[in-house]
């Protein structure tokens, strides 16, 4: 598999098309929104996290962007929502680990058992210019969770 095919795996292109969690869920109960933008390419996302106390019920989003950013939002939404109710601190740990791996310039891998489909984004870490695309939704979730505390 060439480098490009490694980056654009079928799973990624598929998530980019399916966009799991896209369309904001109604803001019932406790929820927080965050809008995040990549100034370089203009990609943007509005992400909504709905919680029950310190557990996350689901993550939904709306946005525009490249296939990496769309796939990543889709994968994040699927990962969190499938594990719901997910403790917020576990979500934070997931985000931290994701960031570390993506910033590793190809030296670290995302564990499939932990990150499920999102583990396919491992290859992005070799493309420093694309790390921001893959991080967009994750940063938005981090900010939305922080807003809940603020």
């Amino acid at each position: 598999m060439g480098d490009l095919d490694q980056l654009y795996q079928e799973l990624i292109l598929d998530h980019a098309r399916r966009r799991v969690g896209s369309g904001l869920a109604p803001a019932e109960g406790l929820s927080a929104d965050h809008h995040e933008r990549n100034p370089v390419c203009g990609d943007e996302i509005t992400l909504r996290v709905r919680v029950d106390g310190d557990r996350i019920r689901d993550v939904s989003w709306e946005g525009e962007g490249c296939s990496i950013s769309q796939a990543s939002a889709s994968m994040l939404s699927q990962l969190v929502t499938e594990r719901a109710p997910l403790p917020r601190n576990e979500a934070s740990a997931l985000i931290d680990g994701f960031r570390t791996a993506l910033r590793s310039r190809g030296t670290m891998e995302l564990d499939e058992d932990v990150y499920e489909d999102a583990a396919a984004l491992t290859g992005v870490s070799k493309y420093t210019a694309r790390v921001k695309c893959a991080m967009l939704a994750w940063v938005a979730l981090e900010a939305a969770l922080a807003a809940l505390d603020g």
Partner: protein
Amino acid sequence: MTIPTETIDLAAVRADFPALHREVDGCPLIYLDSAATAQRPQSVIDAELAFVTGANAAVHRGAHTLAAEATDLFEDARATVAGFVGAAPEQLVWTSGATAALNTAAYAIGAAGLVREGDEVVVTEAEHHANLIPWQQLASRTGAVLRHIPVHEDGTIDVSAAASVISSRTRVVAFAHVSNVLGIVNPVADLVALAHGVGAIAVMDACQSAPHLPLDLPGLGVDLAAFSGHKMLGPNGIGALYGTAELLDALPPVFTGGSMVTTVTLETAEFLPAPHRFEAGTQPVSQAVGLAEAVRYLDRLDMGAVHARERMLEQRMREGLRGIDGVRLLGDADAERIALCAFAVDGVHAHDVGQFLDARGIAVRVGHHCAQPLHRRFGPAATVRASAGVYTTEDEIDALIDAVGAVRGYFGAA
């Protein structure tokens, strides 16, 4: 065009550019991002190197031999670069680049009281942020109003709208000679006539014309103009603000410090005449020397020949891209142009297109190219921009067209 394109020996030109001979992911580099920054010929690199290892010293400051040599080289460079744009040496202010030049212009115009509350500043819808935000800021500092000239769907400036936007309240009309997204040469004569008709200052962003067309700034009649060295085969960190003698003399300095003063007390400072008044602090001397060599290189190629060759590349690129299903060009007017196309691919985000091209060694730029308002006007938030330089071959254009043709298939969008 009367000059035949054959006057440029492309193999010889390409041999002059060391950066072109690298590989990307195992493919030979196809550099189509010259509008962002151009590669430099060996002679420019050598000129900087010779300076740095030979005459490296601060200028206009010392009696020692190195300083005298450096000063001579620096002022010779000014004369050379000024000559390249048809100007006298005193009309050329060195800056760190076009952005610094345009900001200096905007701050100086404001500080001189040439724009005040209720006045109007006019820009076009197609400006690079560097020729937009400084004017927004000037307007907000002074209480002036910023107005804009729209562009037609085909990318050309709406001159009749310009005639109604520009009024007796207009103090500044700022526009690009060539937009860095549309690649179309703007109707400078019309805009200058409209500006001067109401006594406004005409400011031209020459970043994308200086590397590609014969340029005669006094002949164009603009009052101020800006360009960057790194886009015209020269070093980074050097550019220029051109001005008419009268206007430069009327403008106060913006950044202040050493080497631009006559008498300084703890309370006040008196400033040298232009251009030195605008050149505070240690100047980028090796870069000025490098830029002078870059324009000599361009002069040796002959800017008429460069332009003729670019027209040919431009037509090849535009026709080729236009023929691809799902590719939409921004500003497809059959106007005078440089060899630059910005385009969107249906169903594939610009970033993904760029990545796909990069995997074939083709370097293009993706994003809004520092022209968000123009992108908003045309729709896509991000586009792909391919831009040629003096070293670009027909084969490289064909490789681009071929690759763009394969994009939608790869991403399942066709």
